[in-house]
Structure formats: C-alpha cells, structure tokens
C-alpha cells in the first residue's frame, strides 16, 4: 500500500476557485475525520469516475476502481497536508489502477488465445502516456463546460439539458413545459449565446442530437424531421 512513486505523479493544479477545499475540511482530512473524507470525495468523485470510465470504457469497472482509489487515499490520509497532493495522488493512482486493470484483462485474453511468451514489459507499453494525458485533458474540459451549463439561468438551463442531455425534440419539450416551440428555440439560442459554446450551428446540432437519440434510445425518428 505504497503511494505511487514520484514519476507517476502528474503536475496538477487547482484551476478554479470552486475547487478549493475549506481549510477545516483539509485539516479534518489529514486527521482522518469522516467529514474531511466526505469533503474530498464530493470534490473529486465525479472527475475520477469520469476519468476511469474513459480509460476503461465500462461503468461497472470504473465504479469498482473509483471505490478502490478513494479507499487507498483515505488509508494514508495522514500523509497529505495540501490539497494539490491529494489531487495528484488521486490522478496518479487512478492511472495506475486503470493500467493494471487493462493489463490484467489483456493477459487473461492472451492466455485464452494461447499466445504464450509475451513479456510483461510489453503490456505496460500498450497504454501510452498520451492516452492518460488525453483522458485528463478531456475530464478537465468537460467538467468546465458542464459547470458553465449549470450556471445558466433556470429556464434556459432546463431547455439546454432537455435538448442536449436527454435528446428531446423541441416540439416534445414545448409540449412538456406548455410553452411554444418558438420559446424553446429562443431559450436554446439564449443558452448557446451565454455559453458561447460552438454548438450554434443549428442544423448540425439538431442532426447530431437526432442521430444520438437514434443510436442510444433506438427510437424511431422520421428522417424528414432532421431537416424540418
């Protein structure tokens, strides 16, 4: 149960004010008190869960590994006196756990296929550092965009979420909220303006949403609607 060696640590920083842990919580964490654990967990759970999910591509496995990572962190709580160290440990240990896991799965498959004599060293190289880096970049970026959406005014946030997260059509949303489809469209424009996210190519975005709903929900949608 050793902390990862220095070389596996990423150079992490606390990018946002929101990310700051209260001094009381940090102290409680170092002292091994539950409220400190909860504060740290609430701050980093979603990031670590998303990161491990992206690395492993499986919900169940990312759940198992996220549980392990936090338990590992809590076990050696007394070693951490700064928040940056906590975060660096989480990412480093998330990376290591994912690589271990992928290696184990690969080896099992290899043995099954009866390709013998593959030296263990090669497995490690299969997961390149750049994959890990890209997963971290993606995690940070998505977190920031998601929080920008959360910061939208109530009405346009609701409509943004229904459109993009739930993949609902403007007509359906208009019906559910008892507003006109025109209001839905104007709230959506408003949301995109506020976010200034480049989703603003209306036709494209709509086409994407419809494709996604088709793929993910298996719903039948009239192709003609796409260009309506």
């Amino acid at each position, binding site marked *: 149960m050793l902390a990862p060696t220095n070389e596996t640590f990423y150079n992490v920083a606390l990018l946002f004010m929101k990310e700051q842990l209260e001094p009381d919580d940090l102290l409680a964490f170092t002292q091994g008190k539950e409220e400190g654990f909860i504060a740290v967990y609430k701050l980093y759970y979603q990031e670590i869960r998303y990161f491990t999910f992206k690395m492993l591509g499986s919900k169940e496995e990312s759940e198992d590994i996220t549980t392990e990572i936090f338990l590992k962190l*809590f076990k050696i709580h007394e070693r951490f006196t700064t928040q940056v160290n906590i975060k660096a440990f989480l990412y480093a240990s998330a990376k290591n756990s994912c690589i271990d896991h992928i290696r184990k799965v690969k080896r099992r498959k290899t043995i099954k296929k009866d390709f013998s004599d593959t030296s263990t060293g090669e497995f490690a190289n299969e997961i390149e550092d750049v994959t890990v880096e890209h997963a971290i970049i*993606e995690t940070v970026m998505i977190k920031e965009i998601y929080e920008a959406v959360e910061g939208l005014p109530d009405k346009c946030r609701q409509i943004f979420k229904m459109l993009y*997260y739930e993949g609902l059509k403007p007509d359906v949303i208009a019906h559910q909220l008892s507003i006109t489809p025109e209001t839905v469209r104007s709230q959506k424009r408003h949301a995109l303006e506020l976010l*200034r996210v480049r989703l603003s190519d209306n036709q494209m975005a709509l086409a*994407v949403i419809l494709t996604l709903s088709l793929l993910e929900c298996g719903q039948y949608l009239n192709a003609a609607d796409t260009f309506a």
Partner: protein
Amino acid sequence: MPQIHNIEYIGHLIARYLREELTGPENQVLQEWIHASDVNREKFSALISSETLIRNLRAWKEAGTGEELVWQRIDRYLNPKPRNIFSLYRVSIAATILLVAGLIAAWYWLLQNKKEQPAVAQTETRPVNDVSPGGFKAKLTLADGSTIVLDNAANGQLSEQANTAIVNKDGQLIYTAGKSNAGAGNAVVYNTLSTANGETYMLTLADGSKVWLNAASSIRYPVAFTEKDRRVEISGEAYFEVTPDAGKPFLVQAGAMEVRVLGTHFNINSYCEESSIKATLLEGKVKVRDVSQGKEVTLKPGEQAALASSRSQSGPLATYHSPDLEEVMAWKNGKFVFNDADIQTVMRQLERWYNVKVSYGYDIKKQPINVTGQISRFSNASKVLDMLAATGWLRFTIEGKKITVMSRR
C-alpha cells in the same frame, strides 16, 4: 521529449477555446500543444466536435449519478459493522419465513386476480411511488382494557359508562354527561384514546372541552369529571379548547410538564423524539409547571413554554414570547407550515403523518438545512416532497414506505 505539460491547463484552455474566451498568449500555448503531435491534433478536433461534446457531457452527468452508491461502498469499508452470527442466523430464518409467506400470498393473489380478470383496464393515475396522507382513525381503550377501533365511517353510540354516553360521529368521539349525578362518589373510570402514525381524531370530553389529537399521540381521561379537578394525561401532540369552570381547574400532564387552566385554548407538543415539550397558549391564561423542579410560569396568549424532554439535557422551564403560531397550529388547521424549519424536524412530522421511515443521504447531516413552505396535510407525500425540493437544496426518493433525503448537487 518536451517537458511535462500542465495537462490540466490544456483541458482548461480547450474549454475556454470552445467558449471563445482565449486570450492571445493562451491561444499560443494551446496551438503549441495541438501541433506537438498528430494524436494531439486528432484529440483536439474530436473534443471540440458537437457530437463528441454532447456525448461527453452526458457521460459526465452519468458519472455523477453513482456518487451516493460509491460512497456507500466506501463507507462499508470505513465503518465495518460487527457481524453477529447469531443475529445473522435469525435474520436468515426470518427472511426464509417471509419469503415462503410472500410466495403463498403471491400465489393466492394471482389466483384471485385470474378470477377477476375481465375487469376493464385500471385508470388509476396516482404514481406508484407515493404515500397517501393520514386520516381520521384512532383506538379507544375502555376501563376494562377492551379496545374499539374508531374511524369516521362507523357512527353510533358505543357504550355508556359511569352515567356518560359515548358516541362516535364523523371522526369525533363525544362523551355526554348524564343529567343525574349518579356517577359522583364512585371510583373514577378512565378511558384512553390513542392514534398511531398516520391517524388523527377529535374528542369531546364530558365537560364539553374539545381535544384534537395529532398522529402518534394519546390522551387518558376520566369518563366523568367527578373529582375536584379535571385531570388528563397526554403523550404526543394535542390541542385543547377547555370549557370554563372556575370551580374545577383543568390539568394536563405531559411528561414532566403540567399545564393548569381555567378555560382556554392551547396546544401541547410532547413527542419524545423532539427535544422539548412545548405548551403554546392561544387564548386565556395557563400556568405551566415543571413537575420535577417545581418551577412554574404563567403564559399570556401567544406565548410558549418549553421544557427539555429528556432528563439528561434538563434545562430550566423557558418562556418564548413570540413563537410562530401559524407553524404550531398548522396540524390542527389541516396544514403543514414550515417557516425556516429544520429539515429533520420536518421529516419527523412526515414520518408520523404518512407513517413512513425517513433516512438521510451521507452528506445531509453535515450542514443544517432549513426549509420554508406550506401545503395541505391531506396531500400525498410526493406533493409535500416536491414543495420541499423546490427550496433548491434537496431531492427525495420514495420507495414503498421509505423516504430518502439527499442533497442536490
């Protein structure tokens, strides 16, 4: 090999790029990273495409939904429960018995249903996960220990004791003293009216005094007031409208609190799970006495006396000059009224009225949460919870008779 980038910073820059917030120097750093390798270039264009962005936002949201569950798993390791083999054994036996009983019940139910099959499709619109409100029900225990279940359907004269007629009518139990004073001199006969969770009832005593009984409460009273004072004992919560009788003071005992009145309107809340026993006066005048300490205060209308309900935290009998009367009287007026009320106190009220068990998410106990709002007590539980959720801090789930309170991210 280039030196290690602050890779988080690159993520932050891509987010800013998407939001068209990049400054010149920031753009330069980002461009450098993009052009450092083909894989970076590919990753960048994938990340900023609408399709990937939407898919990733959904995945992020999805990742957040397991927060509570994963914490429960972690918590099981942090606070392992000592295993008791004996109780495990007993639990498994109980589970087996329940399972067998359940199977038999299910079998019967299926048989029954088959017979009634031709019925038209059900038009019930109530959501499956909801709990209906409490209603007018109670249990009357007579002096001989026999019990009668009361509700607002069964009307009529129940019995006659100590020259007093007892009638049940429309959710109200009424005692009417006989004209002759034949009962005087005999031993006093006591009855007890009690409500369980989800029940409420009204009572008119032999002297014409009216008592409203909230859920999970009880009152013990003489069938006829033949003594020199009128003495009743309560647990839980009750509201009194006492008929004036200067010659016979009316005394209510609630735990260590005793309220002495002449003729007046007041409420007593003495649930043992609440931190204090409270008497609140609406009209008239009462004297409130702490029986264990012998201290006494006199209340004016609109005032409240409070006494710590457990011995361990016994404090002095305190008087509050401006309690929230609307909140205190809400139950009797058929409402829930919460004015900046602590969520745990609120949920205890719901437990008693909807006969549900409430549990809390792991992070609720950390910060105190207060809620405000009012709604009819005769709404389904889901309506009340919707109102509470509208405060913005909370969300709820109902499963059968179990409500879980969680904080909203």
